[in-house]
């Protein structure tokens, strides 16, 4: 599941791999509505997976879905956006709240420098234009976790606009190709987070914890350039990796540091866009794609049954696996945006426009920040491919797991084995063991040095690859032993004695004249039988390639 796959989505819930190139579409496990789509060729809408309805016997209706996202990422900073109280995930309720956060009269907002820098870094990493002047506004609505009755945000003139986010999707089976898709970024703005409400159904009350109120958020608005849940999930994952690489947000969905709202609509290709609904409460990477796809399915179902889509807000119910309308708001929300009267415009500078003699604490230089941007995930992947000659999908997989890249690089440092071999061992065997026991990379009982030593033994042909796997298992189980120790304990070394091997081959050949005849008669598989017999005779301590070589030499006339 490391490489995301672009799929055909069928209402019969049968997932099919699609090959989106040239015009041919093939699918396995055709469902009822599916055969018809195979005859239909490529549509003019580039690379949008189309959903064929089950009713296509009556006449084919192809639907295209349009998905836009609003992503809120909590800024990784010590203190909040407009006040000096601490930002921390778990703390006693209402202990990280200042008078401003509680909206007590007489308090004023004071902007946190770190949050502005985080916004500029993120904007630059996402190819945005940074607005040298941006403004703060108030967005009014009443809710118990918003003590002021308004949220300070940047609606009119945000800090960054017009960017792009590139993400890659794997298409087709082997050889799978990697397609890069881009989604435009409408804007990035700074805004305040609200407090947390805990609903107590039993006593019909809500408990409010304001620890989160006032924490800085980056709202990243993605234009509706995505067309299914999988694309949206991949884009979000890529944004997550970028934010983590920049250090601007920990972007952990489980801890609520990354929240996603989706705007979903469906239409027939070539016709105008349909009515959109907003899907909220998407707080898990795992359910993101599922939620969006279930909303697409619901909308298609409604429209095909002659009903209309309401422009409403829906919430994803994890247990039911579908979206439900949220508690009805009274008509469309009117947020009564107005300029924040307590904050002057935010001015940013570059090296040219920097006022001379300015206090460096009080000015932010965009060029200075741009020069110090760390390596972005896409650059890292490219570098890995160039440096180690590995495949793009392996490059993806290495970046997809926390700490895996570092592990990989540590192994490479200490081993003589080929990068391709290391990649295969790290991504297949090492990662496999981790996943089986649900461990993180930093919880692994096998250290990079141990794996490096093992790979060295393998590289030197001191052990066979089967033996190496056994050693790995042993390393995993019992910490503290080195690969060499395990090899000698279990006597897994490959036979190095060439003469003994020749004798073994000779013995087997003598003992199985029929098989030898088969080989001489030209049966290609007979030799494997001989190899197997020799291996058994040598207790699996001989290298199969060496055995094959000796046998072939002996058997040639």
């Amino acid at each position, binding site marked *: 599941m490391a490489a995301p796959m672009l799929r055909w989505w069928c209402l019969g819930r049968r997932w099919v791999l699609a090959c989106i190139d040239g015009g041919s579409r093939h699918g396995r496990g055709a469902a009822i509505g599916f055969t018809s789509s195979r005859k239909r060729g490529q549509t003019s809408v580039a690379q949008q997976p189309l959903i064929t309805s089950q009713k296509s016997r009556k006449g084919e209706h192809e639907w295209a879905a349009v998905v836009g996202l609003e992503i809120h990422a909590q800024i990784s900073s010590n*203190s909040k956006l407009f006040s000096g*109280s601490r930002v921390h995930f778990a703390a006693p*309720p209402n*202990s990280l709240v200042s008078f401003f956060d509680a909206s007590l009269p007489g308090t004023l907002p004071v902007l946190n*420098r770190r949050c502005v820098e985080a916004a500029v870094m993120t904007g630059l990493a996402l190819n945005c234009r940074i607005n040298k002047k941006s403004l703060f506004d108030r967005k009014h609505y*009443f809710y118990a976790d918003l003590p002021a009755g308004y949220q300070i945000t940047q609606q009119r003139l945000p800090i960054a606009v017009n960017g792009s986010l590139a993400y890659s999707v794997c298409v087709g089976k082997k050889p799978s190709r990697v397609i890069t898709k881009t989604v435009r970024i409408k804007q990035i703005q700074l805004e305040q987070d609200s407090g947390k*409400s805990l609903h107590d159904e039993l006593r019909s*009350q809500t408990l409010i914890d304001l620890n989160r109120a006032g924490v800085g958020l980056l709202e990243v608005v993605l234009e509706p350039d995505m067309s299914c849940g999988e694309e949206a999930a991949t884009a979000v994952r890529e944004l997550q990796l970028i934010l983590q690489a920049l250090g601007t947000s920990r972007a952990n969905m489980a801890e609520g540091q990354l929240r996603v709202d989706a705007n979903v609509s469906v239409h027939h290709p070539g016709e105008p866009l349909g009515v959109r609904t907003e899907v909220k409460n998407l707080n898990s990477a795992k359910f993101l794609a599922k939620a969006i796809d279930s909303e697409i399915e619901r909308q298609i179902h409604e429209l095909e049954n002659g009903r209309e889509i309401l422009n409403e807000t829906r919430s994803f119910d994890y247990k039911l696996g579908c979206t439900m309308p949220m508690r009805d708001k009274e008509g469309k929300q009117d947020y009564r945006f107005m300029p924040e009267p307590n*904050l002057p415009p935010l001015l940013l500078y570059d090296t040219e426009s920097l006022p001379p003699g300015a206090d460096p*604490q009080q000015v932010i230089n965009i060029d200075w920040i741009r020069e110090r941007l760390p390596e972005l995930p896409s650059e890292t992947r490219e570098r890995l491919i160039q440096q180690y000659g590995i495949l793009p999908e392996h490059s993806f997989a290495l970046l997809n797991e926390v700490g895996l890249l570092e592990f990989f690089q540590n192994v490479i440092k200490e081993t003589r084995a080929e990068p391709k071999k290391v990649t295969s061992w790290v991504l297949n065997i090492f990662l496999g063991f981790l996943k089986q026991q649900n461990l993180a990379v930093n919880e692994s009982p096998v250290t990079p040095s141990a794996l490096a030593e093992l790979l060295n033994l393998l590289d030197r042909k001191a052990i066979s690859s089967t033996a190496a796997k056994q050693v790995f298992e042993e390393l995993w189980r019992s910490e503290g032993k080195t690969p060499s120790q395990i090899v000698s304990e279990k006597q897994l070394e490959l036979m190095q004695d060439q003469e003994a091997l020749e004798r073994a081959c000779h013995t087997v050949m003598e003992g199985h004249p029929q098989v030898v005849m088969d080989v001489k008669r030209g049966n290609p598989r007979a030799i494997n039988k001989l190899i197997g017999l020799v291996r058994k005779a040598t207790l699996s301590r001989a290298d199969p390639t060496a055995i094959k070589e000796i046998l072939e030499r002996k058997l040639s006339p």
Partner: protein
Amino acid sequence: MWALATRLGLRSWLGWRRGFTSKADPQGSGRVTAEVIEHLERLALVDFGSQEAVARLEKAIAFADRLRAVDTDGVEPMESVLEDRCLYLRSDSVVEGNCAEELLQNAHQVVEEYFVAPPGNISLPKQDEQEPFSDN
């Protein structure tokens, strides 16, 4: 401050509305309909309370409308009287918080250091259910 905020919000909101109706009524009759009043009362939780208050509102709008007499073509609107001030940037250090006890003292009801609120917003009664305006 609150009055200013309401007026500013109202101005921008009415300007938006008027954008749709002004083609038929370029000068604006200055009348604020009951529908608008009801909508405003819900949005801002302001109680107009009497017909006199609505009349006062209409006069305030007429007063502000005189701004239209000024030709502002090509002039950048002023968003804030603070526009020439420097926006102070605070360094990212923790200097506040840890006053849960003090804050909770303000609360009407408290459960284990949480503020207590009703479950969701309580809707205003519909207009017909409300008390009719008194004439003073």
